[in-house]
C-alpha cells in the first residue's frame, strides 16, 4: 500500500527531473557543448547521491510548514504538485517543484484546517527572493574571476573549449548533487512521516527508511531526466539568453552553489561556529537560481541579451505554480476524502462529510504541530534492520559479471560486424568486378564477331578477285593459243571464219556468268533477312524475280541490272512490269520504294 501511495511522490520526482535538471545541464546541452545522453547519465548518478547523502535538511523545513501526517494526504499533495509542474513543463515554462509542493502543502493545511507555520513559510518565500539574488551575485563574482584568469593565462581558444567541456561536466555533476540534496525534500518530504521503520545494512553503509525514500525519489528524478528533460534543456540553453561556453559554466556553477549553500548542514554549522547566523536549509527554487545567475551576467554585460518576455513568462510561472498547486491540492483532497473516503489527515476536516465529526477542537496549535513534526523523525521507534551485506556483495558481483559479459558480447558483436562489413565489401567488390568483366567480355565478343564478319567478307572478296584473275588468265592463255594457231597457218589459208571464232571466244568469255553467279550469291548472303521478308510478304515470287528485287533494293538502274543479269534492258523492264503485277503495286506507287520498305 505504501508503495502505491508513494507513486505520486515518484511522479513528482519525475516532473522535477524533467524540469529542473535542465537548470544544471541545460546551458551545456543547449549550447551543444555536451551531448544530452552524457549529461543525463552524470545528472542521474549525482542527483541520487545528493538525495541520499545530503537530502535531510530541506525536508525538516517542509515538515515545519505543514506536516502531512496521513499517507493518503501525502499522496494527494504530491500528486497535485506533480500535476501542476507537469502542466507548466508542458507549457515549456521553467517552473519550480519547490513552489508547487509548498502550494500543495498550504492547500492541505487549508483543507485539514491545520495552521500554516508562518515562520517556515516566510523562510521559504525569503529563499524565493534570496535564491536568484544570490545566484546573480555568485554569477557576477565568478564571471569576473574567470575573465581575470583568462586575461592573465591567455589560454588558446581550442584548449579553453576542452577545459570548458570538462568543467561543465564537473560543475554539472556538482549541480546535480546539490539539486538532489536540496530538492529531494520537494519530492518525498511529505512522505517522511509515513516512511517505514526499516534499515538496510549493506555492511559498509546502512540506509534507513528515510534514506530509502530519498533513494526512490532520486531514482524517479533520474527517470524524469532521461525521459523528458531534453526539451526543457533546449529552452534554457537557447531561448532565455544566448549563452557562450564560459557564461554557461558560470551560470551552472552559480546555481549549483546556491543550491549547495541552502542544503549543506556542514556549511551551516561552520557559519554558526565562526559566529555567523545559521544558513536556513530550505528547498530552493533551482529555476530561480539559474535565472538569477543569467540575469546577473546579463546585467554585467549591459543587459542587451536578456529576453524580457521569457523572464516575464517565468515570473508568471512562479506566481501561478503555487496558486495552481494549492487549489489543485485542495480540490484533490476534497475529492479523495469524499469519494474514496481516503484518510488525508489524522485530524478531522470540516470539508469531509461522514463519520468524521467536524469540531473546532480539530484545529491544533502550532506548538502541538511542532511536537508532532518532531515525532515524524522517530528516534526511539523500533527499527527493523535487514542485513544485506552478503546479498549486496553478491548482487554487485553479479552486476559486474553481467557488465563484463555484456562488454565481451558487445566487443564480439562489433568484431563480427566489422568482419561482416569487410566480407560484404569484398562481395560487393567482387560483384562489381564480375559485372565489369562481363561487360568487357560482351564488348570484346561483339567486336570479335564484327571483325570475323569483316574478315569473312574480305576473304570472299579476295576469293572472287582471285577467281576472276584465274579466269582472266585462262581466257588470255586461250586467246594466246588461238592467236598462235592462227599465226602458224599460212596467210592464204586464213579465213574470216577463224577471226569469227576468236570473236566468239572473246564474247563467250566476256560473259560474266561466273562473276554473276558469285555476285548473286554474295547479294543473297547480304540480303538474307530481306529474302526471308520477301518470301513472307510475297510467297509466289520466282528466284529471278527475287533476284530482281534484291538488285532494285540496291538502287541499280535497269541498264545496270541488265548488265549484271546478262539480259537486255528491255527484258528488265518487262520483268519489272510483271513483278509489279505480282506484288499488286498501284500505278502511283514506286516499285523500288516498296521493295526498300521491306
Amino acid at each position, binding site marked *: 500500500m505504501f508503495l502505491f501511495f508513494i507513486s505520486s511522490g515518484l511522479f513528482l520526482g519525475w516532473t522535477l527531473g524533467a524540469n529542473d535538471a535542465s537548470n544544471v545541464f541545460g546551458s551545456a546541452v543547449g*549550447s551543444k557543448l555536451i551531448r544530452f545522453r*552524457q549529461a543525463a547519465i552524470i545528472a542521474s548518478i549525482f542527483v541520487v547521491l545528493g538525495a541520499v547523502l545530503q537530502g535531510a535538511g530541506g525536508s525538516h523545513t517542509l515538515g515545519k510548514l505543514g506536516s502531512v501526517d496521513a499517507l493518503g494526504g501525502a499522496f494527494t499533495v504530491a500528486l497535485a504538485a506533480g500535476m501542476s509542474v507537469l502542466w507548466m513543463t508542458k507549457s515549456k515554462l521553467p517552473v519550480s517543484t519547490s513552489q508547487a509542493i509548498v502550494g500543495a502543502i498550504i492547500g492541505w493545511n487549508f483543507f485539514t484546517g491545520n495552521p500554516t507555520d508562518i515562520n517556515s513559510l516566510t523562510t521559504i518565500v525569503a529563499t524565493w527572493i534570496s535564491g536568484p539574488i544570490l545566484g546573480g551575485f555568485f554569477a557576477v563574482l565568478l564571471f569576473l574571476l574567470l575573465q581575470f584568469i583568462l586575461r592573465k593565462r591567455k589560454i588558446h*581558444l*581550442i584548449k579553453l573549449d576542452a577545459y570548458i*567541456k570538462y568543467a561543465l561536466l564537473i560543475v554539472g555533476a556538482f549541480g546535480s548533487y546539490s539539486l538532489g540534496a536540496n530538492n529531494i525534500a520537494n519530492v518525498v518530504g511529505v512522505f517522511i512521516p509515513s516512511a517505514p521503520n526499516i534499515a538496510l545494512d549493506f555492511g559498509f553503509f546502512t540506509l534507513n527508511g528515510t534514506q530509502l525514500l530519498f533513494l526512490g525519489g532520486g531514482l524517479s528524478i533520474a527517470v524524469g531526466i532521461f525521459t523528458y528533460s531534453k526539451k526543457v534543456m533546449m529552452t534554457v540553453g537557447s531561448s532565455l539568453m544566448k549563452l557562450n*561556453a564560459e557564461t554557461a559554466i558560470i551560470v551552472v556553477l552559480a546555481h549549483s552553489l546556491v543550491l549547495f549553500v541552502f542544503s549543506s548542514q556542514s556549511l551551516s554549522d561552520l557559519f554558526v561556529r565562526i559566529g555567523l547566523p545559521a544558513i536556513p536549509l530550505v528547498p530552493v527554487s533551482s529555476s530561480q537560481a539559474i535565472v538569477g545567475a543569467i540575469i546577473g551576467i546579463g546585467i554585467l554585460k549591459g543587459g542587451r541579451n536578456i529576453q524580457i518576455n521569457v523572464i516575464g513568462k517565468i515570473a508568471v510561472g512562479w506566481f501561478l505554480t503555487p496558486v495552481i498547486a494549492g487549489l489543485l491540492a485542495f480540490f484533490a483532497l476534497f475529492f479523495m476524502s469524499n469519494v474514496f473516503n481516503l484518510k488525508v489527515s489524522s485530524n478531522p476536516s470540516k470539508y469531509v462529510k461522514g463519520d468524521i465529526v467536524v469540531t473546532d477542537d480539530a484545529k491544533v496549535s502550532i506548538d502541538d504541530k511542532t511536537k508532532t513534526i518532531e515525532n515524524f523523525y522517530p528516534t526511539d521507534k523500533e527499527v527493523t534492520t535487514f542485513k544485506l551485506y552478503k546479498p549486496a556483495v553478491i548482487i554487485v558481483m553479479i552486476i559486474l559479471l553481467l557488465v563484463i559479459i555484456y562488454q565481451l558480447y558487445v566487443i564480439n558483436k562489433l568484431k563480427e560486424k566489422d568482419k561482416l562489413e569487410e566480407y560484404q565489401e569484398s562481395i560487393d567488390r567482387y560483384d562489381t568486378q564480375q559485372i565489369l568483366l562481363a561487360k568487357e567480355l560482351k564488348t570484346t565478343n561483339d567486336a570479335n564477331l564484327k571483325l570475323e564478319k569483316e574478315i569473312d567478307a574480305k576473304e570472299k572478296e579476295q576469293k572472287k578477285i582471285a577467281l576472276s584473275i584465274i579466269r582472266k588468265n585462262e581466257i588470255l592463255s586461250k586467246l594466246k593459243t588461238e592467236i598462235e594457231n592462227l599465226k602458224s597457218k599460212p596467210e592464204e589459208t586464213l579465213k574470216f571464219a577463224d577471226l569469227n571464232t576468236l570473236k566468239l571466244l572473246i564474247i563467250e568469255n566476256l560473259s560474266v556468268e561466273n562473276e554473276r553467279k558469285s555476285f548473286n550469291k554474295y547479294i543473297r548472303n547480304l540480303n538474307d533477312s530481306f529474302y526471308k521478308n520477301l518470301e513472307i510478304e510475297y510467297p509466289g515470287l520466282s528466284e529471278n524475280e527475287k533476284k530482281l528485287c534484291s538488285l532494285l533494293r540496291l538502287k541499280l538502274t535497269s541498264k545496270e541490272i541488265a548488265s549484271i543479269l546478262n539480259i537486255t534492258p528491255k527484258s528488265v523492264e518487262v520483268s519489272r512490269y510483271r513483278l509489279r503485277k505480282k506484288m499488286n503495286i498501284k500505278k502511283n506507287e514506286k516499285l523500288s520504294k516498296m521493295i526498300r520498305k521491306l
Partner: protein
Amino acid sequence: MINIFKTSKTVSLSIDQFFDKIDLGTLNFKKGVQNYIDGNLDEFAQNLKSVSILENEADTIQRKIENDFYLHSLMPNYASDILNLLESVDHIIDRSTDVLSQFDVERPHMPEAIKKDYTELLNLTVRSAENVVPAARIFFTSPDAVKDRIQKVLFYHRETAVLSNNIKRKIFQEFDSLKLSEKIHLRYFALHIEQVSDTCKNIAHQLSSLVIKIKM
C-alpha cells in the same frame, strides 16, 4: 572525451603551423615580386616555387584542422566562423601564388621610372598581410588584442588603395612612350598586388565580427 585535451593541443599546434606557413608565404611573396622588379629572375623563380610549396602545405594543414573540428565537435558554436576565418587567411597565400604566377607567365615590362612605386605598393600590401596574420593568431589567445592589429590592417589597406590609384594614373598620364597594351598590362599588375591587401581587409572585418560574437 578523454582525448579531448590531446586533440585540442594538436589542433592549436596545427593552427599555429598554418599561420607560420602563411607568414612565410607572405615573406616569399614580397621577395619574389621585389626580385622580379629588380630583374633577378632566377631568384624570382625560386620564390615562386617556395610560395607554391607553402600554399600546398597550408592547404593540407587547413583540411586537417577542418577534419578535427568536425570529428571532435570542437567549439560547436563557433566552428564554422573559425573555419571560415582560416579559409580567408589561406586566401592570402593563394592570392600571392596567383600574383607571382602571373608575373612569371606574363612577364610585364616595367619601366625604371615606375619600379620604385611598385616596390612601395608591394611593401604596403605586405604590411597589411603582416598585421592581419598576427591578428588572426592572437584572436585564439587574446581576442581583446585583435582590435589594435585590425586598425593597422585597415590603415595599410587604405594606403595601398591610394598608391595603386596613383600608379595607374601615372602609367596612363605620364608614360607616353609605353604602348596602350603595356599600360593596361601594368595597370593589371598594380591591381593584382592590391588584391592581396583587399583579402587582408576582408579578414580584418571577419575578425572584428568574430571577436564580438565570441565575447557575447
